């Protein structure tokens, strides 16, 4: 039976054809023809590398940040319009480029707002008074500070009843192909630069270095090739960064490139945003490297021995430059130890830079280096470089895997995230490609040291024999590196999974209390430890009551601690708004509202709240066991990498008894003084807190509401008649504690139970409030 031919779509055929042509052009030449290739110039080959990387990684980059909590919820149906809208995000927003606009369903603009001055992760807006029933659309323009991505997003809430046919707009990123281009150019060129400088200092000099060549210690043909690649990479990196600034200004200002240039909008982005900070740092470091490179060219003939120092030193500047990518990566928005996340990401990118950038540099340098050689000489020269490179590459692989593991566990909360989210899918693709790269690298490592792995490699001898020529498999490895880099670009542009605790719908605590013919309703949002807004709604017979003076006090009875009195702002429609960070932990809290009526009478509404941490806006999270284990693996990998250096340092140490005694003594003293310092600081802080607010011996158990105040007044009049006003005035100071008043009431009033004494204390509190 004849086999049915495999069907392919026209698109797939076209895509495969293109890819095969490009890959064939670059990598599938015969080894000898490639090594001595006169056909592909350096520029062409470099451009092809970039083009492939670009083709593989072009996609709209998405913002890293996500919404943690919103008040009101999307599509919430509210009885009345809230006084303000609040949206908490996982990362800080750029204050000048983030905004919020509220419109009604007819499109009329009603209010606008922006990031809170106190909390750049909170987008907030005040709503106008008396919004009628209907649908309201909240248009948000979010410019995330860490990655500079701008997201347009709409949300909806209803007042009264839900209205059909009104919907928000899902998050859409305004990033474009230009962003993918500059990210590709800058990442590829800086990784290649770092790889080249470290390859030169750590591989090529030890493998091929010779005093016969004063300028750089390598033959002129090799130095020429290295120099050309460095020059092209610096130019490409500068070009990429210029594009980055222009594109970022286009996105921030929603302008075209002509407006960005003519209006110098790029300048505002450069000096006024976090993206601009990182851009400045990157350009300064790139300028430093370019200067060092320029000086090495300038002094090449007159002082050739300076070439090597300039190139070696540049590796450090490039390592620092790569850190700017980490500071603007996913890691910066990590809820778990952001600085450790950035450090681990930096280690990851450094290892990738040496490995991938070094491999790229090696493939570009090998052809001219080996061109004049033949036979065994060629093979020995190749082996000398590969052995050196392979040794460091193994260390880099260990670092890449361990740091990659930590970073992945930083974002994946459940196993389902790996298969059920875009980020998980992108990570799986990257892992598969890295696995292929590791296999090729392992084969190279085995083939380079057949004597060491003879026992293990018997079964693979035919394969090892085929690899012995190295050049074809080196190009396979380089091709895989490009694919891995593309997958890295893809992963870094993919939003991380939203943690399960984000966007949990916990309604803010709310309670109502009658106060004569009035009803007082208080709502605390979000209602957890942290900054909260206290909304007090006063109604009479269902109608809002305006023109009142409302003051609020938040108290934590368990610690006998009362905050200062807050004056609530009259937001109309019977709503009075105040905000503060008084609630700093979970437990039972009181909120007291003293409401002064138009006739001058003051009435009290008091509420007891059980505050739970669930309602707080979670902007950090504790590590789980897997996070700790992954961090341990990273520390172990770094320690393993440092063993050779540590051993070298150890051999240089003066281990005489006197020196060892002094060193041990100094270390022990340092540890002791450090521990003592930490303990002293902590105990001083604890003493300060205890002095300022000691735990009370007795806790006020009676909520100071209107009824308690009335009882307290009556009891004070009857049982405390002999209390002189002078001593009472001394007691009623702003910092007076309930327990002090409780004891004083016991001294000056007779025949009261504990509950009655607390009623008197609550009443006395009103005398000075």
């Amino acid at each position: 039976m004849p086999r049915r031919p495999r069907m392919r779509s026209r698109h797939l055929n076209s895509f495969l054809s293109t890819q095969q042509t490009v890959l064939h052009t670059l990598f599938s030449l015969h080894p000898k023809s490639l090594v001595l290739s006169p056909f592909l110039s350096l520029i062409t080959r470099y451009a092809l590398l970039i083009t492939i990387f670009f083709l593989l990684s072009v996609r709209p980059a998405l913002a890293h940040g996500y919404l943690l909590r919103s008040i009101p919820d999307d599509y919430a149906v509210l009885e009345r319009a809230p006084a303000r809208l609040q949206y908490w995000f996982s990362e800080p927003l750029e204050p000048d480029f983030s905004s919020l606009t509220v419109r009604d369903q007819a499109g009329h603009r009603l209010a606008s707002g922006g990031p809170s001055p106190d909390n750049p992760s909170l987008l907030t807006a005040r709503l106008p008074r008396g919004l009628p029933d209907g649908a309201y659309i909240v248009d948000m323009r979010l410019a995330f500070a860490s990655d500079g991505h701008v997201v347009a997003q709409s949300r909806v809430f209803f007042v009264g009843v839900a209205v059909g046919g009104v919907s928000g707009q899902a998050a859409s990123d305004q990033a474009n192909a230009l962003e993918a281009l500059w990210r590709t150019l800058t990442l590829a060129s800086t990784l290649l630069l770092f790889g080249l400088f470290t390859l030169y200092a750590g591989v090529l000099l030890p493998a091929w270095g010779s005093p016969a060549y004063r300028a750089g210690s390598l033959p002129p043909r090799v130095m020429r090739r290295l120099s050309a690649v460095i020059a092209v990479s610096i130019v490409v990196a500068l070009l990429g960064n210029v594009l980055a600034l222009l594109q970022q200004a286009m996105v921030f200002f929603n302008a075209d490139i002509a407006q960005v240039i003519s209006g110098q909008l790029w300048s505002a982005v450069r000096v006024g945003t976090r993206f601009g900070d990182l851009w400045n740092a990157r350009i300064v470091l790139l300028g430093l490297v370019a200067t060092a490179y320029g000086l090495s060219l300038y002094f090449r003939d007159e002082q050739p021995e300076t070439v090597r120092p300039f190139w070696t030193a540049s590796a450090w500047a490039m390592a620092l430059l790569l850190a700017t990518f980490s500071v603007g990566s996913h890691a910066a928005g990590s809820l778990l130890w952001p600085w450790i996340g950035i450090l681990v990401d930096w280690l990851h990118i450094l290892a990738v830079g040496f490995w991938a950038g070094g491999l790229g540099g090696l493939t570009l340098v090998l052809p001219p280096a080996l061109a004049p050689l033949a036979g065994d000489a060629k093979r020995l020269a190749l082996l000398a470089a590969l052995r050196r490179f392979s040794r460091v590459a193994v260390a880099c692989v260990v670092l890449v895997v361990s740091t990659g593991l930590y970073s992945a566990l930083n974002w994946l909360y459940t196993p389902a995230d790996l298969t059920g989210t875009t980020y998980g899918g992108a990570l799986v693709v990257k892992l598969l490609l890295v696995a292929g790269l590791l296999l090729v690298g392992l084969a190279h490592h085995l083939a380079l040291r057949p004597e060491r792995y003879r026992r293990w490699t018997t079964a693979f001898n035919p394969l090892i024999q085929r690899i012995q020529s190295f050049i074809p498999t080196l190009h396979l490895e380089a091709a895989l590196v490009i694919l891995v880099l593309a997958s890295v670009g893809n992963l870094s542009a993919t939003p991380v999974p939203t943690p399960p605790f984000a966007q949990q719908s916990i309604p803010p605590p709310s309670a109502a209390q009658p106060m004569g013919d009035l009803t007082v309703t208080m709502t605390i949002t979000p209602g957890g430890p942290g900054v909260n807004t206290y909304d007090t709604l006063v109604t009479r017979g269902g109608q809002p009551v305006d023109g009142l003076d409302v003051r609020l006090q938040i108290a934590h009875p368990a610690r006998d601690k009362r905050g200062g009195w807050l004056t609530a702002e009259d937001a109309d429609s019977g709503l009075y708004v105040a905000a503060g960070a008084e609630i700093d932990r979970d437990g039972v809290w009181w909120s007291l509202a003293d409401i002064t009526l138009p006739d001058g009478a003051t009435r009290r509404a008091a509420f007891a709240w059980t505050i739970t941490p669930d309602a707080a806006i979670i902007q950090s999270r504790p590590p789980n066991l897997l996070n700790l284990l992954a961090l341990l693996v990273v520390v172990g990998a770094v320690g393993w990498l440092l063993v050779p250096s540590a051993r070298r340092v150890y051999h240089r140490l003066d281990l005489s008894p006197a020196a060892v005694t002094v060193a041990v003594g100094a270390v022990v003293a340092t540890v002791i003084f450090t521990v003592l310092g930490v303990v002293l600081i902590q105990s001083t802080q604890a003493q300060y807190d205890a002095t300022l607010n000691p735990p009370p011996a007795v806790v006020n158990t009676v909520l100071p509401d209107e009824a308690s105040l009335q009882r307290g007044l009556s009891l004070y009049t009857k049982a405390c008649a002999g209390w002189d006003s002078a001593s009472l005035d001394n007691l009623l100071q702003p910092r007076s504690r309930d327990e002090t008043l409780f004891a004083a009431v016991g001294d000056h009033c007779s025949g009261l139970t504990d509950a009655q004494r607390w009623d008197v204390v609550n009443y006395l509190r009103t005398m000075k409030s």
Partner: protein
Amino acid sequence: MFSPVILAHGALGPWDELIFLGVSVIFLTMMGISWVRSRTNPPLDPPTASSTAYADTPDHYRLD
């Protein structure tokens, strides 16, 4: 008047600028140390050694 800013202005916490500057200082210092050491250190290959002897070393080959 704007002054050029090279710091990640406090987005990661109160100490981030200090840490960022500290890391920069450390790396630029290492850059200087590398420059001085590379300048003063003798070449990797002893000038007295013959190229043939070094050509036999598996980890080193002079591309003469």
